[in-house]
């Protein structure tokens, strides 16, 4: 009910404001144009981030200081801490980076965003920036309509910058006109009451505009024309810093628990920094005065002093909070625990991961590995080999024939419960109409879907295999039991190899999958050559031989499916790499030559 009322009320208030004051209209138009500029700028950077950002993040977040530096640089370049925090939530949700690294980036983003105040205070208000805005808008508009993704991205960035500059220009004009009619300084409140009041106004303004940058520009322009006092401007800046976390909180709503933890960390950091800034405001002001005096900023240049203040209190926040990143991570993990790992529900496929191709592909890959974990448990039990044996260093050829105890597993039920539903979710998610990828990425997505299909198929084939494995486990016929043990060993081997590949400890590599396939083929051939002899010597019946031949085919299919899935998930990162691997992969005829 309230939600339905709020928008019309806001629109009516704004319309009344525009009717009463043309200057207010100019300021509001300036803010709107500025916000449009932010949207364009974000779209432009999103066009570039596919692939590049993912690679950068992997390299630059292995230590806290690197993560902080990454946050500073990326926010300085993109001029949007909100965009960086939303990207970070997206990467964290997909499992590409850890929580500590994510927190580091957020800390850095808070420092990086202070460069915006410097740009506006030092450059934006002194130069007639609207003169730069026009050509940028024209060039941007032309480039936006180009087919090339990169040119389009540059177009969006230029248009975004043009709109930002134009927005600042209109805000400045509006406030300057205001100066002649209304003096907002009359509403100035001094002391701590004023600090908290204006901090709250700063929070509200940023929450409404969804951009601390826009609030800060508004503060700086109002300050530059003397519409607000310096002290109140400082409080507004502190409020803007806290209010900006709302974007991350909103962004985290569609993220998983990790994304929510990061948004909480962002909120905690900015709240703590805000309280520190308010508590120590007089000391920080003295520090700012000392610094400005030292570098030659005149004492009445309040706009630049505000920029210095913004940087100082954020630096202070980072300095105070950085030693507590470890405890903060522990605290967040405790109060926001990871949900119980569900074998049925998806763990990585959330709305937030579709923002960037890297996060989407990483999330889909992780989800398929989750599917594989379920398949691993079903297949290993289906062949009556405990998963712990596969995961151990025990020699499979020795261990597997030792035990024929049937592990009770209803593969049909398990398939429906933990494979089919998850596989369907993966197919559904990756086929969603909002997912639009370039050919490189869509090729990889297609490969990943195939891997999911192969895993599901391997489980289905295990069901067929299970019947006879169970049946011949208790037979007194040693010959047929030994043959089924060989089948169990070969299926267990591919499961173990994939586990070793996942550990990524260098003991095996993707090329070993081919060698494993060759070993399985050799074993199969040996059995097939032996079948006639075993029948002749009455070691097995013809009926047993038929079952054995069918089950050899099933085991071959399982091994082939898991090998393929292993190559896609663990051997290649792109469809090009997979194609190169396919070019050297040994086919059936190559195996035949080698076996001979």
């Amino acid at each position, binding site marked *: 009910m309230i939600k339905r009322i709020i928008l019309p009320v806001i629109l009516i208030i704004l319309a009344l404001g525009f009717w009463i004051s043309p200057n207010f209209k100019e300021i509001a138009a300036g803010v709107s144009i500025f916000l449009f500029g932010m949207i364009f700028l974000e779209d432009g950077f999103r066009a570039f981030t596919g692939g590049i950002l993912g690679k950068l993040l992997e390299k630059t977040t292995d230590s806290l200081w690197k993560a902080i530096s990454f946050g500073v640089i990326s926010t300085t370049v993109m001029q949007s801490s909100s965009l960086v925090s939303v990207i970070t939530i997206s990467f964290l949700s997909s499992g590409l980076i850890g929580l500590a690294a994510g927190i580091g980036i957020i800390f850095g983003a808070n420092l990086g965003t202070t460069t915006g105040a410097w740009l506006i205070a030092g450059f934006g208000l002194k130069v007639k920036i609207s003169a730069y805005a026009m050509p940028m808008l024209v060039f941007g508009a032309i480039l936006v309509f180009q087919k090339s993704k990169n040119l389009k991205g540059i177009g969006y960035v230029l248009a975004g910058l043009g709109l930002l500059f134009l927005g600042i220009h209109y805000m400045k004009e509006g406030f300057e006109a205001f100066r002649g009619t209304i003096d907002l300084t009359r509403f100035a409140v001094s002391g701590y009451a004023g600090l908290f009041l204006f901090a709250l106004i700063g929070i509200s303004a940023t929450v409404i505009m969804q951009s601390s940058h826009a609030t800060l520009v508004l503060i700086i322009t109002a300050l530059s024309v003397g519409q607000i006092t310096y002290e109140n401007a400082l409080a507004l800046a502190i409020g803007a810093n806290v209010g900006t976390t709302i974007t991350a909180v909103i962004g985290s709503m569609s993220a998983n628990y990790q994304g929510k933890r990061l948004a909480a960390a962002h909120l905690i950091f900015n709240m703590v920094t805000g309280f520190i800034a308010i508590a120590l405001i007089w000391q920080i002001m003295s520090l700012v005065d000392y610094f400005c005096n030292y570098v030659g900023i005149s004492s009445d240049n309040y706009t630049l002093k505000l920029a210095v203040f913004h940087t100082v209190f954020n630096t202070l926040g980072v300095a105070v909070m950085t030693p507590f990143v470890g405890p903060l991570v522990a605290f967040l993990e405790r109060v926001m625990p990871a949900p119980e790992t569900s074998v049925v529900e998806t763990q990585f496929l959330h709305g937030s991961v579709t923002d960037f191709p890297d996060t989407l592909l990483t999330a889909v890959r992780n989800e398929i590995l989750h599917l594989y974990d379920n398949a691993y448990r079903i297949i290993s039990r289906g062949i009556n080999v405990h998963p712990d044996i596969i995961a151990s260093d025990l020699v499979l050829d020795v261990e597997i024939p030792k035990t024929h105890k049937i592990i009770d597993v209803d593969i049909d039920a398990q398939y429906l419960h933990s494979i089919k539903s998850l596989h369907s979710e993966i197919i559904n998610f990756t086929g969603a109409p909002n997912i639009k990828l370039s050919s490189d990425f869509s090729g990889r997505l297609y490969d990943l879907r195939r891997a999911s299909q192969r895993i599901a198929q391997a489980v289905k084939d295990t069901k067929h295999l299970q019947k006879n494995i169970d049946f011949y486990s208790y037979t007194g016929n040693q010959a047929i039991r030994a043959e089924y043990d060989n089948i169990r060993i070969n299926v267990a081997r591919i499961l173990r190899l994939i586990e070793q590949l996942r550990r990524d400890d260098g003991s095996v590599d993707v*090329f070993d999958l081919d060698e494993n396939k060759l070993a399985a083929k050799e074993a199969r051939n040996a059995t097939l050559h032996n079948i006639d002899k075993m029948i002749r010597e009455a070691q097995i019946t013809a009926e047993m031989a038929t079952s054995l031949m069918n089950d050899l085919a099933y085991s071959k299919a399982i091994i082939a499916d898991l090998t393929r899935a292993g190559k896609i998930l663990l051997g290649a990162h792109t469809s090009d*790499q997979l*194609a190169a691997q396919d*070019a*050297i*992969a*040994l086919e059936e005829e190559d195996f035949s030559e*080698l076996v001979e």
Partner: protein
Amino acid sequence: MSTKEIIKKLEFILGTKNGVAAKRVEDIEVLLAELGKKKIKFQAKLDGATTSKDSIKAERKLAVCNAQIDKGRAAIEELLGDN
């Protein structure tokens, strides 16, 4: 590599219409380099094998490795030859 081969390869790489194939050759070459290292490792294992079991194991690994290298080289030849 002979001058002729270098020229052939340069022509191939510089031809924009061959961009996809050039990338494929590059990717296969990366894999061949990894296989080359593996081959040396297996050869050393074979040379140092003390039991027949170890020897057979290393021989087979070496055979698979060689077959993969041969396939990779053939694939590159084919990609270069097509142009």
